[in-house]
C-alpha cells in the first residue's frame, strides 16, 4: 500500500489560514490502514483545527467527510453537490488522491494534510516500512524476494557494499542491510550459488528516470 504520515499541525494551520470554509476530506484506502488520513484522523484533525482557531478568535468552519477512495472519479463525484460550500479542501489522501481532486475540482484550492512517503507494509501497529520503489521492472525473482532498490540505501544491484556490519546498513544501525537479508534467504533456499551471478546494468527508463509513466491496457479498456 501507499504509506503516508501526518503533516505537522503547525504546517496545516499555516496553509488553511486564508480560508474560512474548509472540507477535511479523508480516504478509506491506504491512508486509513496506515492511520494517517482515514475517518478517525479526519475527526481528530478537524477537532484540533476548530479548537485552535476558536482560541485565536477566528471563525472558521471545518466539515468532515471521508470517501471510499480519492483516486477514483466515481467516488470523487459524490461530493460535487457540496463543493460550492467550501473555500478549500484539506485532503488527507495520498499525493495521488490530492492530485485527482485537483483535476476534478479545478477551481477549488487544495491543501495536502499528509506527506506521502513510500510503498510499504505494516510491520506492526504504528510501524510501516518501505518495500517497493515502483521501478517498473521487478527484479525480485533474482534477489531472493528482497528488493535491493527500495531497501539498500545505495540501491546496489550487486551487493552488499563494504558498509554492511552485523546485518545492518552503514547509514543507520536500525536499518537492515538488504543484501544481508538477500544472502540469508538465498542460503535458506539453498541457492547461494546464484549470488555470483552478476546483475547487469539496469534499464532505469521504466522508473522515474523515464518521465511520468502510464500503464495502458487495451485488453481491459472499455
Amino acid at each position, binding site marked *: 500500500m501507499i504509506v503516508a504520515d501526518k503533516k505537522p499541525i503547525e504546517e496545516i494551520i499555516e496553509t488553511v489560514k486564508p480560508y474560512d470554509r474548509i472540507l477535511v476530506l479523508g480516504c478509506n484506502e491506504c491512508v486509513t490502514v496506515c492511520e494517517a488520513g482515514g475517518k478517525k484522523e479526519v475527526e481528530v484533525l478537524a477537532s484540533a483545527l476548530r479548537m485552535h482557531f476558536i482560541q485565536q478568535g477566528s471563525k472558521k468552519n471545518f466539515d468532515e467527510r471521508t470517501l471510499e477512495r480519492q483516486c477514483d472519479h466515481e467516488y470523487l463525484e459524490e461530493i460535487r453537490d457540496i463543493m460550492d460550500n467550501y473555500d478549500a479542501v484539506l485532503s488527507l489522501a495520498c499525493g495521488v488522491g490530492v492530485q485527482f481532486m485537483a483535476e476534478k475540482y479545478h477551481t477549488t484550492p487544495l491543501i495536502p494534510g499528509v506527506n506521502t512517503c513510500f510503498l510499504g507494509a505494516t510491520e506492526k501497529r504504528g510501524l510501516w516500512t518501505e518495500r517497493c520503489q515502483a521501478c517498473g521492472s521487478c527484479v525480485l525473482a533474482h534477489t531472493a524476494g528482497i528488493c535491493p532498490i527500495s531497501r539498500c*540505501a*545505495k*540501491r*546496489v*544491484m*550487486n*551487493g*552488499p*557494499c*563494504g*558498509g*554492511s*556490519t*552485523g*546485518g545492518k546498513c*552503514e*547509514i543507520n544501525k536500525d536499518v537492515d*542491510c538488504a543484501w*544481508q537479508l538477500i*544472502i*540469508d534467504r538465498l542460503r535458506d533456499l539453498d541457492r547461494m550459488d546464484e*549470488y*555470483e551471478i*552478476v*546483475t*547487469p*546494468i539496469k534499464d*532505469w527508463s521504466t522508473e522515474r528516470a523515464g518521465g511520468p509513466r502510464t500503464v495502458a491496457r487495451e485488453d481491459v479498456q472499455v
Partner: protein
Amino acid sequence: MSMNTPSKLEKVFKSGHIAVTSECGPPRGSDPEAVTSKGAMIKDHVDAVNITDNQTAMTRMSSLAACIHLKQMGLEPILQMVTRDRNRVALQSDILGAASFDINNVLCLSGDHQSFGDCAQGQNVHDLDSMQLVQTVRHMRDEGKFLGGDDIKRPPNMFVGAAANPFADPFEIRVPRLAKKIACGAEFIQTQCIYNIAKFEEWMRRVRERGLHEKVFIMAGMTPMKSAPMAKFMKNRVPGMDVPDEIIDRLAGVEKKKQAQEGIDICVEHIQRLKEVEGIAGFHVMAIEWEEKVPEIVERSGLYPRPEV
C-alpha cells in the same frame, strides 16, 4: 609480459615486484598546492597514487582535476570514481576526460552514503553500482564502445581496479564477492584497512583456495593509527572497519606523544608479516592527512627503493 594498458602500476605488478600505492585526498578548496605538496612528499616512494573522490561524501576538489595536477608533476595517478554522484553519462564522460590526460588507472567504488557528508539533504545517483562501473570501463576499453553501443574514437586505456572489504559482513560472501568483481573485469584490488591480521589471512586463504590471487593483483590496505582515540573511532564509528582491541590496547599502553610512532611501528610490522602471505601483490598505504609518514613506512617495510619499470 603481456600488458593490457600503458599503466605503470600494471607494469610493476607484471614485472613481479610488490607494488606500493598511496592516497591523496583533494582539498576542500581550489588551491592546487594542496595536492601537489602531498604528491611531492610521496613521489619517490610509491608506484602510483589514488586520488579519492569526495571521500566520506564531503565536497572537495574533483578527483579528476587533482589527478591531472599529479600527472603533470610526473606521478602515476589512480582516478577513484564513485557511483554516488554521477550517472552513466557523466561517468563515461569523465573516463574519457581522464583518458585524454593519459590517466591510466581507475578504481571503481560505490562511495560512502551522502548522509555522512556535508550534503546530507542531497540526492544520490547510483545509476550503476561499483561492479557495473568496472564492467563499463572494461567495455569502453576492450570493445572501444560506449554503453549505448557507439564507437569511441581513441578509447580509454585504463588499468581497472576495485575495492574489497574482507571485514564487512556477511563474511561468507566476501570471497565470492571478490570473484564477482574479477568476473566483471577488475584487474587489481585494494582492500579496506587491515588491522585484524588473522581474519585477513583467513580471507586470503579462501582467496587462494579458489585461485583468485592468480586472476587479480591484491593490494593490502594499510593505514597507520595516529593515536589510541583514532583507533577507537575507527573501531566504533567507521562502517566496515575491524580494529581488534589488542591494537587499541597497544596504542593506549604508551604515553600520548609516542602513540603516533607506535602506530607507525604497528603498520610496518603488519606489512612485514603480510609480505610473506602468498597472493599479496602489493600494499596500499593510506596515511590519512599524514602523507609525510609514507616514506618512513615504505622504507622501514623494505619496500624502498621503488623499481624502475
